[in-house]
């Protein structure tokens, strides 16, 4: 099964990369852009027949390694 994981900075955690990208977008003329946040996208294949089991494993991976709960949130999608 294909799994897509999104790791983003928690609300309230300052994102210097996001700020730099936002400034660059403004200088390119996209003046209406705000709140730019840079995150991570991770995709993988899990050898599992059950969506539920794949979700359980992905959640564990996020909590143990893929995201740092001090500064990051995560979400994911399991596709059959």
């Amino acid at each position: 099964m294909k799994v897509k994981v999104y790791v983003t900075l928690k609300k309230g955690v300052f994102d210097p990369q996001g700020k730099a990208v936002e400034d660059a977008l403004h200088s390119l003329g996209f003046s209406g852009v705000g709140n730019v946040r840079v995150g991570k996208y991770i995709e993988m294949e899990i050898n599992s027949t059950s969506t539920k089991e794949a979700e359980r494993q992905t959640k564990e991976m996020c909590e143990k390694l893929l995201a740092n709960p001090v500064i990051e949130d995560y979400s994911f999608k399991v596709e059959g």
Partner: protein
Amino acid sequence: MKFGIVVLPGSNCDHDCYYVVKHVFGKEATFLWHRDRDLKGVDCIILPGGFSYGDYLRPGAIGRFSPIMEEVVAFAKKGGPVIGICNGFQILTEAGLLPGALMRNRDLRFICDYVWVRVERKDTPFTSRYREGEILRIPIAHNDGNYVVDEDILKQLEDNNQIVFRYCNREGVVDDTSNPNGSMANIAGVCNRDGNVLGMMPHPERCCEAILGGEDGKGIFQSIIETIEGGGWNGNR
């Protein structure tokens, strides 16, 4: 006494630490290979700087799962002194031995420079040789040294006196202009509640000889040696 220096793939300050311990202070030192589980009877563990596992995912995120780290965590939980310098600090936060996280520097630049830090606390096994409020000139070299923690934990750190070093100016004033990387409350180093685990971004091992530009880092190693040789650290228990 014997120091153990952890070597992960990508550690690059391991030999500097070894050199200081062995050749500046004349103490026994041994490397602890990341795949091993044997702490070789060491009295203090140093997690050196570098870019373990290429800083992939997040600095320290992968290094913390090395087999040797399980032993380091157990050693720390028994009260053994552990000091993490730079990448070592990042690993200690990822491993949950220290609170908070180290994010990309505020200005998105790798900073390699001498900075001033103020010693906020001397009753730790790492800082007993300093005076409280002493100002040290010490090098930093990092891309991700921006210490972040949530407000509640920050308050706990302040209340429990866990902030060991803060970035300051030459006069010892802690302010925004003396903060190189955006760290909350100018934090350059923190310890755990028991005081036996210290993480710091500055590199004391790079300033232990006048010929290298300064000796302000010597106090860290002297403090550890005196503590261990004086019978160990009982912590705040």
